[in-house]
């Protein structure tokens, strides 16, 4: 089998190997991890014809520079609007191209977005933990974070017949600045004014943003009498509020239980687009009923299935 080898020349702190994740282990303290923007990751995989469960590289605003030192392969970049240079070619995200020995592949932040996915046609060799190569950033378990000097190997590397061209970016893969939330599950620890402030005021993302979550800047949402509540399970999308009233939205590598009360939880279908907002960008929250949340999940799943079906 042919293979392609890449050397990491430079990387930001948050570039890591991800696959679809390891759901089902929260009771052992293990979040699903996987891509911050699951839809974009999935579209990149489909554009390459890669099998379900294939691993790719998640690149953050810190960017990534690779040298191809052996072989050649098609690659796709999907996700945020990053700038991609492959050899002498200038590309953007949402494109499919090829890279060969002696060429440099550089990915840098572009006009929008926080995370993008670099996948190769072939099998990216990655260590697995509990059946998945998804990196849990805090522990480094899974495929791992990338480091300068490291080599990445793609087994069975191929150049696809449709070697170059755009990958369609559906509307739902754009950043999302208005998020549907269901209030609670611990709304009862908050005064009515805090819930009103959550829904009436735009917040901004802060630089305290990593795979575990993003802290928001905005009016304090101070809980009352919640300093010693027993730790309870949390989910990706939980909006937890610390004692000082500062809200954090938990994301792919979230803790599985926590003692801070959750004022609301973001509907899952809105999270991928939310992760593409950048620090200092605005986000607002809109309360929906649990029934409306389920309806959103179902209609968004239909839209995604339609986009994915283009590749089948």
């Amino acid at each position, binding site marked *: 089998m042919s293979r392609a080898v890449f050397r990491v020349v430079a990387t930001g702190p948050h570039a890591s190997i991800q696959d679809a994740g390891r*759901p*089902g*282990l*929260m*009771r*052992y*303290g*293990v979040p699903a991890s996987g891509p911050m923007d699951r839809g974009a990751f999935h579209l990149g995989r489909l554009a390459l014809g890669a099998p379900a469960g294939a691993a790719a590289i998640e690149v953050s605003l810190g960017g990534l520079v690779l040298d191809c030192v052996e072989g050649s392969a098609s690659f796709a970049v999907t996700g945020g609007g990053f700038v991609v240079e492959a050899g002498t070619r200038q590309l953007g995200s949402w494109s499919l191209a090829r890279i060969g020995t002696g060429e440099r592949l550089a990915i840098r932040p572009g006009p929008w977005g926080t995370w993008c996915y670099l996948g190769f046609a072939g099998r990216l060799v990655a260590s697995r933990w*509990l*059946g998945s190569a998804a990196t*849990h950033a*805090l*522990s480094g*378990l899974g495929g791992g974070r990338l480091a300068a000097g490291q080599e990445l190997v793609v087994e069975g590397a191929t150049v696809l017949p449709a070697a170059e061209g755009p990958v369609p970016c559906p509307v739902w893969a754009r950043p999302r600045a208005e998020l549907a*939330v*269901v209030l*609670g*599950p*611990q709304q*009862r620890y908050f005064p009515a004014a805090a819930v009103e402030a959550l829904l009436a005021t735009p917040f901004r993302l802060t630089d305290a943003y990593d795979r575990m979550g993003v802290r928001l800047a905005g009016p304090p949402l101070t809980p009352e009498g919640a300093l*010693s*509540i*027993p*730790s*309870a*399970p949390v*989910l990706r*999308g*939980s909006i937890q509020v610390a004692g000082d009233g500062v809200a954090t939205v938990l994301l792919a590598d979230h*803790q*599985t*239980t*926590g003692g801070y009360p*959750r004022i609301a*939880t*973001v*509907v*899952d*279908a809105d999270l991928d687009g939310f992760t593409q907002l950048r620090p200092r960008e605005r986000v607002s929250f809109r309360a929906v009923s*649990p*029934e409306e*949340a*389920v309806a*959103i*999940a*179902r209609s968004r*799943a239909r839209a995604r299935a339609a986009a994915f079906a283009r590749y089948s």
Partner: protein
Amino acid sequence: MAEAFPLFAPVADRALLVSFAEELDETAHAAVLRLARALAETPLPGMEEVVPAYVSLLVTFDPLVTDHAAVAAALRARLSAPATAARAGRLHEVPVCYDGAFARDLAAAAAASGLSEEAVIAAHLAGDYAVYLYGFAPGYAYLAGVPAPIRLPRKAAPVRGVAAGSVIVAGAQCIVTTLTMPTGWWVLGRSPARILTGDPAHPFLFDVGDRVRFRRISAAEFDRLEAAG
């Protein structure tokens, strides 16, 4: 806060949080364990994960298959069914070395609790611990059961770089850590036990509801067990 327990709170589009009490309470935790066991034995349609904690349990589901009302109704039916006999969790014996650099806070914990270092160790060994929940990070099992004489509040400031395998206590809780991390808990010793076992068939040493006793080992035995993996 006069709601009737159990309380069913919807979580976004895909889960219910079932709470049995407001404060930590043995009866409520027993109810969590019973419901978790019942759901493990007979899962609900569309159910994805069950996450037990101190007094609450999260049930996640696929919103394309079911919804909050259907899951809540099925959970209420489970709760009104005759309780299955409580089953004791498995008992684990976890070795701990309380020597030297492994026990960086032993002297301070002794001073804070007004005991000798040996008395702190004896108290820690006397505890009968149960796994209440996992949280914080993979494999961080929260063991409740630290005896009253050595229940100490967290330290004022966290200490960085506390090694994986550290046996740490705060209040009634004890954790054998799995990652090198900062902590404000008191480091009493180090265990060679692997909570993340590396065995794909049984990747975690404990399940929620299991019981734990600690056994004192020498530094030499620690090295031997550590080398044996």
